[in-house]
């Protein structure tokens, strides 16, 4: 699995997989008979997915995936949530979040 040909084939397959998964329900022209609960609940998919991706990525950051020293990261997450909700400005969110993280790290001796 280390020669150029098989790496090329693997990557080609990854391209197909990444395109097909991301266009899955709009690839074909036919209607999909989604159940009613799914259609209603789908409104909550974006907020659910973003939180599910982001929160572990914030709290479990670092070279070793662990909760150790999560205090500064948790504080940074809360500040980021607050600033983003209040100002809707991503650059400010990142700056305040990272600033909080470094300050808290200093104070808590992280």
């Amino acid at each position, binding site marked *: *699995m280390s020669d*150029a040909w*098989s*790496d*090329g084939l*693997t*990557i080609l*397959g*990854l*391209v197909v*997989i*990444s*395109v*097909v*998964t*991301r*266009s*899955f*329900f*709009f*690839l074909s022209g036919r209607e*999909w008979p*989604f159940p009613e*609960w*799914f259609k*209603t*609940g*789908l409104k*909550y*998919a*974006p*907020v*659910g*997915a*973003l*939180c*599910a*991706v*982001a*929160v*572990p*990525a*914030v709290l*479990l*950051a670092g*070279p070793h995936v662990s909760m150790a020293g999560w205090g500064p990261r948790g504080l*940074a*997450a809360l500040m*980021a*949530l607050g600033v*983003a*909700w209040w100002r*809707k400005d*991503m650059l400010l*969110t*990142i700056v305040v*979040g*990272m600033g909080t*993280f*470094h300050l808290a790290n200093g104070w808590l001796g992280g």
Partner: protein
Amino acid sequence: MDWREMRRLWANEVFRQGAIDMLKVTPGVCAWGLVTGVAMVKSGLDVTSVVAMSILVFAASAQLAAVPLMLAGAPIGVVWLAAACVNLRFVVFSAEMRRYMMRLSGPRRLLAGYLTADMTFALMHRRYGGVSVDQLGREAPTDYFVGLSAVNWVTWNVASLLGVVLADRIPMDWGLELAGALALLGLAATLMNDWKKVIIGALAAAMAMFCHDWPYKTGIVMALIVSIAAGYTLESLAGRLALGREGEGRP
């Protein structure tokens, strides 16, 4: 896409708004791109493959899942299966994206699939999620999508390639990963425009923390399924409560 269409897009308000909205989350996109580029090179995969993957696969989490397996000499089917698992959340996203994309031809829908990232989807949802079908017909969600994607594709690839080039000079304790994650979290906060979405966000986060050691991000898919089911439950409960209150108000 020909020259005339590019000029039409350039003059198009919706396209430009898409580009501007994506530019606003660019710091987060750049941080993720850099981290991905560095991680891919440091894993030991040859640079040609890393560059090809960044540009052609254009899916950070799937790439990062596939690379260690490729290096470990895993069978090709296992590598593909892992990438498919990591990308499962996009299958759910595509159910909503269908509303915006069906006006495009088949090949262009494939291109749209290739260009859809977490940020792109979240911003599409923020602008068009609550918009009726009639309104969608009058607006041009695909123009907005092209605006988002053009900026996202360029910035992500530039950052990722910079990560590849500067891999030895970027210390990972800069907290770049944290910056990228905070940007996603901030985007989530801007979607929380009612109390139900706050509850679902907290629930999804708790679920994802609980399942974070499940293989190939299947924990995220689990959190997504819980979000959809709980969202439906909350909607029905809220509907019943509103109905009850209306009933009480009647003489």
